[in-house]
């Protein structure tokens, strides 16, 4: 997919576990720039201390903590159920997958079973969340490139339809608080499932239009191809997960590896990238939207009747037996995991969120060294982070 004539910038990384030292050219001083925390392109309150030689990045240190709310300590002070609305606020673009990851971790801790209809509803809502997340993420990336919001607003048009579905089922557009330990909070009516089918029928046309608008745009290709290359060995060693890892050519999708829930019943493929650059990450997200549509069509066809909640589940006075569990899902941003230690009481003893956005940022410096400062914005946008998850 490279336009002939555009040279591919090769990666300067030879020892993949240590970032190279880029020496400044000439005798100029280094210009130290703080990008953020008030910055339109940093996806939230996030700062990068960048040292520049002219336009080239010599050093880049990310600074975190502007949105730190100590979610993990709050969770130690309230019950397991009380933490569920707080998980909505971690990756606030994808609240339902956060709910699912937490519910999965608690179900691993207690060994609860989830009824089949609830599993199907979880898959439907999870894939709808993935579609609206990837559409918004591409939209924001293109906006940072200077497209003034048009592709973003196309993405948001579809996102509005999906958020209306969420509101009709869970009660809130974003902070859904829908999954429970042992199932889902309320059942979906046949009217809701019909409305969802109508939205899903319109989605392939949207993805086609979106791709048509962007895929072969010369400006996009010139700015993103060969930029921000991440070699797969470094990606695996640095714990990168999600679309960023798959764009580096590594076939690791937790939906296929762990087959949590009922994902082994669905027929879908895992797109992988060849060139490991920003363009690949953007195309992977586009292709993953298509795979999510496939899963949605299958799930909406096969969803059975039945209860949506384990009848033995307790809402109040929920006390898991002492022990610990680590549960993880393939969230739209990467591997979202919850590690819970229970001491037999109503509150968890230790509640840990494994934040994919923070860990994907481990390699930000490696990808940005030697490139221009304009590329830093694009590379950072292609990592697709949400500060709520980075800082918790």
């Amino acid at each position, binding site marked *: 997919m490279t336009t002939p004539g555009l040279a591919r910038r090769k990666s300067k990384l030879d020892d993949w*576990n240590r970032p190279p030292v880029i020496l400044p050219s000439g005798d100029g001083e280094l210009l130290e720039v703080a990008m953020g925390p008030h910055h339109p392109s940093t996806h939230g309150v996030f700062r990068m201390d960048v040292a520049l030689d002219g336009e080239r990045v010599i050093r880049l240190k990310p600074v975190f903590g502007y949105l730190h709310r*100590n979610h993990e300590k709050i969770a130690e002070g309230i019950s397991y159920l009380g933490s569920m609305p707080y998980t909505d606020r971690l990756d606030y673009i994808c609240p339902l997958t956060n709910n699912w990851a937490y519910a999965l971790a608690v179900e691993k801790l*207690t060994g609860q079973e989830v009824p089949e209809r609830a599993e199907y509803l979880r898959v439907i809502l999870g894939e709808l969340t993935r579609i609206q997340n990837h559409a918004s993420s591409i939209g924001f990336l293109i906006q940072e490139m200077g497209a003034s919001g048009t592709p973003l607003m196309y993405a948001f048009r579809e996102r509005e339809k999906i958020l209306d579905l969420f509101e009709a089922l869970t009660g809130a557009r974003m902070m859904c608080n829908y999954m429970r330990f042992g199932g889902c909070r309320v059942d979906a009516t046949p009217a809701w499932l019909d409305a969802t089918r109508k939205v899903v029928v319109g989605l392939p046309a949207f993805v086609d239009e979106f791709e048509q608008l962007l895929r072969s745009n010369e400006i996009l290709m010139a700015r993103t191809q060969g930029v921000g290359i991440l070699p797969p060995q470094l990606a695996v*060693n640095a714990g990168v997960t999600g679309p960023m890892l798959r764009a580096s050519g590594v076939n690791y999708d937790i939906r296929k590896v762990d087959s949590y829930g009922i994902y082994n019943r669905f027929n879908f493929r895992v797109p992988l990238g060849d060139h490991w650059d920003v363009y690949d990450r953007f195309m992977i997200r586009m292709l993953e939207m298509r795979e999510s549509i496939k899963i949605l069509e299958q799930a909406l066809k096969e969803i059975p009747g039945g209860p949506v909640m384990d009848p033995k589940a307790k809402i109040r006075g929920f006390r898991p*037996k002492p022990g610990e569990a680590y*549960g*993880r899902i393939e969230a739209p941003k990467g591997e979202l995991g919850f590690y819970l230690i*229970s001491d037999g009481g109503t509150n968890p003893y230790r509640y840990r969120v494994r934040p994919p956005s923070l860990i994907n940022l*481990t390699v930000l410096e490696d990808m940005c060294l030697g490139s221009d400062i304009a590329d830093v914005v694009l590379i950072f946008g292609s990592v697709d982070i949400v500060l709520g998850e980075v800082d918790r």
Partner: protein
Amino acid sequence: MREKGLKTVEEIKAAIEAAVPGAGVEIVPNSSPSAQHSLRLDPRHAAAVARFLRDNEDLALDFLSNVTGIDWPDKEVAEKVKVIRPVTKKGDGVEQTAEETVEETRKRVEPGCLEVVYHLFSVAKKHGPVVLRMRTVNRTDQVELPSLTPVWRSAEFQEREVFDLYGVVFTGHPDLRRLLMWDAFKDHPMRRDYVEPDDFEYEPTAHDAVLARAAAHQAAHQTQEGKGSE
């Protein structure tokens, strides 16, 4: 977790002890239905064990997913001990002293520690998790543990976070400084005995207790902290 092909915890322990002699690995059972048992490592050999786990062909644990810090505070333990003590008893108007076994309740403080837990997976073999644990000696002055960042780069930010929020010092970490709190901050927020500063909430709310503490703090310090918006 799909574990076909992954050895059991006992087999992993045996493999580690064969490769790294004197490694001192202990199995910590997990009583929950998740059955994710962990291996406690001796900090002196942790780096060598980590390298073996990553480079071994069968295990190929090349992906470090999660690094967690845990605080185990000091515990007061009361135990009943049988001691032999001279006891004076009065029998038939005559005082006699004899040695007898008496039960006493002794209280002692079991020192707490800080623990770090690592969750490992394999991208090459698609199995996992393997859980490793390491404990510091105590919570006050001996809080060093070897850093596993040279083995798995994903530990870089996560170990910084454990240092920031718990106070565990990772020796060998390339850039150990605070991650989420600002550099000049003292204290470690995730510890169980952390006390919030008096003036951390600036706006009056209906939570009278917080309001009272903030007012007391301001009266004590006589500073111009803005209380809410003007």
